[in-house]
């Protein structure tokens, strides 16, 4: 069937088998490979994206279910190369990622959490991330990152100029 979604602000439509999972539509049709597939049982959350503003596991939705709706993936989060979302900035500042495989889903889950609960406690953050597995970080810095992003006003979706460089480029 023909499925058309708005992904990261742009329309993408394609003729796909009815059983196409949303995550595969995003990865293979839309070419957005940040969302990853980490399990078969909707357990790991690596595929988390926003659907009409709410976090969902894109492996547990058919592309058809998202037809006509709005999806935001990690690739669509920043307003520009120098205008990162506070959650992205905070994950870097707090070393909230190592191998990066769970990260796109973790970041989108965090964005959704802060939209619903702008000032969570540490316990609320930990519970809200129970559907996002990470094998590398032990979650310690992920939690710090989400709390830092909350302080940074993530809920209002404000992006600000970000310093991507670890040190200023010096004249060579």
């Amino acid at each position: 069937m023909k499925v058309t979604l708005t992904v990261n602000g742009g329309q993408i439509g394609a003729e796909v088998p009815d059983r196409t999972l949303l995550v595969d539509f995003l990865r293979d049709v839309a070419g957005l490979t940040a969302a990853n597939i980490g399990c078969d049982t909707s357990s790991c959350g690596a595929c988390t994206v926003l659907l009409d503003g709410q976090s969902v596991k894109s492996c547990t939705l058919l592309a058809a279910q998202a037809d006509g709706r709005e999806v935001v993936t990690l690739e669509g989060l920043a307003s520009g190369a120098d205008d990162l979302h506070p959650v992205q900035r905070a994950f870097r500042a707090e070393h909230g990622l190592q191998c990066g495989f769970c990260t796109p889903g973790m970041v989108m889950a965090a964005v959704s959490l802060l939209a619903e609960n702008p000032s969570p406690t540490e316990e609320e953050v930990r519970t809200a991330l129970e559907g996002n597995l990470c094998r590398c970080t032990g979650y310690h810095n992920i939690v710090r990152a989400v709390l830092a992003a909350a302080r940074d006003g993530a809920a209002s979706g404000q992006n600000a100029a970000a310093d991507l460089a670890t040190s200023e480029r010096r004249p060579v």
Partner: protein
Amino acid sequence: MIPAPFTYQRAGSVDEALGLAADGGEDAKFLAGGHSLLPLMKLRLSVPETLIDIARLRELRYIRADNGHIAVGALSTHNDLATSGLLARELPLLAHAAGRVGDPQVRHCGTIGGSLAHADSAADLPAVVLALDAVLVARGPSGSREIDAGSFFRGLFESALDPGELLTEIRIPRPQTPSRWSFQKFTKRAIDWAIVGVAVQGGSVALVNMGQTPIRASAVEQALAGGAAPREAASRAAEGAIPPEDLNADRGYREHLARVLVARALEESAARA
């Protein structure tokens, strides 16, 4: 993993959904949030030939106070229930339990109707609606009917719905004392299905994962009605139950947990009232 091939259809109205289901017969299934059905299909444990997407039937997504009862549209998501101010005041047991189903992503998609129709005895909401003496409204080709929660859950993954019948509303009588509730969900990890769960509203006690269906702990209820103290009544929690055995618990442990958790639930609900 990928579902086996199927045909996707989307219904624009309840009548259309019923019509499509009648056409599809045995091999057609309704798709609401899909968070009970799709995981089974991905493991190819369920292979329907037709999926009828009903998730956009907005007329089935509501929470409102009617005369003497709260009416919850079957397509209300768990998140809808968990964040409803009306439920927080009138049916905090339901709001709280819905807020503990799965994880946030699951709660954004999964619906109460889908969960109840799936009839998993390890799920939370079936026991909750049982404790609340809910009436489940179903619509089929021959019209609407009402089914008591006590008759709705027939067996593991087996509800009283006929093929082609759609759950439309969950009607819950207003509890005498809404605040006299408790929900005890015992898990290894926060994300897990309950090893054993207890839902209490007033003098009603229902158990999660203590049988092939959610069950009322009738012996406890009788003891309470007879004036027994919580701990004493709770000692009868496992009577009449045939709890499942699995990796997390054998029969004896489940029975023990039922007694402990019922006691805690009764104490907590009394303290709240």
